């Protein structure tokens, strides 16, 4: 097990290194360079201004040397300086990580709170009105784009209840009421898709498990149906659900970018969007690396959870 964890951590680090190289190369393989694109937005820069800016940012040095310097900083937690604000990228990210983490975790919790009971009910009461309603909910959750859902929700809430999302983020442990009033609705919107996908998977996986011989045995022993489902079926049925949650987590994080933008939330997603619009490449590199690190960590957690859910799975 320990060897497996070590191998998975090493694999995650390798992926992160590859992401860092890919995103670093991306902004440098094009004709011109980041500084030119950056300064082009202001008044026409003179060649001297461009040269000075390139020297300051080290863009006049060979590519691999630039990458080595940047990576040496990254491993020390220094992601360079923003091209627009000149502030350290790490500092900019740290200011916003808390909000995005809250939003992602809350979306996930909400999604699972919705998906699991509906998925279980849909499976247990297969082909009833409840099952069809659950499946309809899932297909709608998959089809309604988050940006549309967010736009319509924020407008309706402002028209009907004069509600606007509060400005200024407060962590849940400091001011739970304010935190919830700020993040609950965005989290619900982000979580809608994950809820739909998890509900479908819970339903189909539980149906599969309920047909297994050991479930028949559990019933034959005289266990109550609830005990059969909760104690014997659910845990095994969760393995594919956990897999799909891991896969969909990437989509959920992508949803934070859009929802933070619509709800004017100062998270990493809106930072990335600002950076993209301003073509602030050092900030883009840092934000992309942050998202990749979260996804790699999530995949690791998903892999490790398999052995807890099914003790027959042992990693060597």
């Amino acid at each position, binding site marked *: 097990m320990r060897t497996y964890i070590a191998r998975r951590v090493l694999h995650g680090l390798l*992926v992160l290194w590859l992401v860092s190289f890919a995103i670093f190369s*991306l902004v440098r393989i094009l004709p011109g360079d980041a500084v030119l694109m950056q300064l082009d937005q202001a008044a026409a820069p003179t060649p001297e201004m461009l040269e000075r800016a390139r020297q300051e940012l080290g863009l006049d040095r060979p590519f691999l040397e630039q990458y080595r310097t940047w990576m040496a900083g990254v491993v020390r937690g220094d992601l360079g300086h923003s091209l627009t604000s000149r502030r350290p990228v790490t500092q900019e990210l740290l200011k916003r990580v808390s909000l995005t983490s809250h939003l992602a975790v809350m979306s996930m919790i909400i999604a699972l709170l919705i998906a699991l009971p509906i998925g279980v009910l849909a499976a247990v009461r297969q082909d009833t009105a409840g099952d069809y309603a659950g499946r309809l909910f899932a297909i709608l959750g998959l089809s309604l784009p988050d940006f549309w859902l967010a736009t319509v929700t924020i407008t309706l809430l402002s028209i009907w209840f004069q509600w606007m999302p509060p400005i200024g983020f407060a962590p849940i442990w400091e001011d739970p009421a304010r935190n919830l009033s700020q993040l609950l609705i965005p989290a619900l919107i982000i979580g809608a898709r994950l809820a739909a996908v998890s509900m479908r998977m819970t339903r189909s996986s539980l149906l599969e498990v309920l047909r297994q011989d050991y479930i028949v045995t559990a019933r034959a022993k005289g266990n109550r149906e609830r005990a059969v489902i909760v104690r014997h079926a659910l845990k095994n049925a969760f393995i594919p659900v956990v897999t799909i949650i891991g896969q969909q987590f990437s989509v959920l994080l992508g949803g934070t970018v859009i929802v933070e933008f619509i709800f004017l939330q100062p998270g990493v997603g809106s930072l990335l969007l600002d*950076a*993209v619009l301003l073509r602030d490449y050092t900030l883009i590199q840092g934000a992309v690396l942050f998202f990749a690190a979260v996804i790699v960590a999530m995949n690791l957690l998903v892999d490790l959870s398999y052995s807890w859910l099914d003790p027959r799975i042992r990693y060597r």
Partner: protein
Amino acid sequence: MVLVRRKPLGAASAAIIGGLVAVALLAPVLAPRDPYAFNLNERGLPIRMQAPNATFLLGTDPLGRDVLSRIVYGARVSLIVGFGSVLIGTLLGTGLGLVSGFWEGRLDQVIQRAVDTVMAIPGIVLALAVMSVLGQSLTNIILVIGLVIAPGTSRVVRGTVLAIKQQTFVDAVLASGASPARIVLRHVLPNVFAPILVIATVWLGNAIVIEAALSFLGLGTPPPTPTWGGMLSGEGRRNLETAPYLAIFPGLAISVVVLAFNMLGDALRDLLDPRSRIEAGL
């Protein structure tokens, strides 16, 4: 016919998609007005923000343009991006998956690490980062979404190829002296078509949403080209309280199309993969 008999909802979805394709192809005939034209009243002023009425069935936007005509023309962008990006992503993903799954070894390792790298970045984040570098254009959007689609497709194809390789008919063809390339193209590829078709159908809907999201965020097809996401974002979002129809109709168009692609994907999966139908309890 099989689809109509066994999966009526899937058939209805296919009909909706067929209708959408027809609308996109016949846009110049079907659109009641020029989608770019500022409709003027008798005093020569733009007919701005008209609620849906008999003359303008879905109303007009703040510049006096006909919303219905813009939605009809917007279908073109959505479908071009959807089919273009899915074609690129599927071809790339299938090629990589076939090579990776059939030959395995070091090449497989290299391809899989590249796939891991792209899959470690959320699709919309990757699309935003690449668009910021490439710049806004329809071609770039298609390329970027194709890049987002390819890794997932390659994983599905690789998994299927690995399973097919275990079957005896592959050993038999190998023993008959066929070259690996011939085996892949003549014997493995046809067996991979079913999962590719299913995943491509679902991705068509997702690609349309990503394009709309990019347009919504201001990084999609540049104005004045009518796109559903762009209509939702600019005039739609700014005027939601006074003219909600500006956002509701393009949003509905996106949702209906994505719903249709999702349901068609489900129906195709059930028809082409009986095991998944049993698993899903359908």
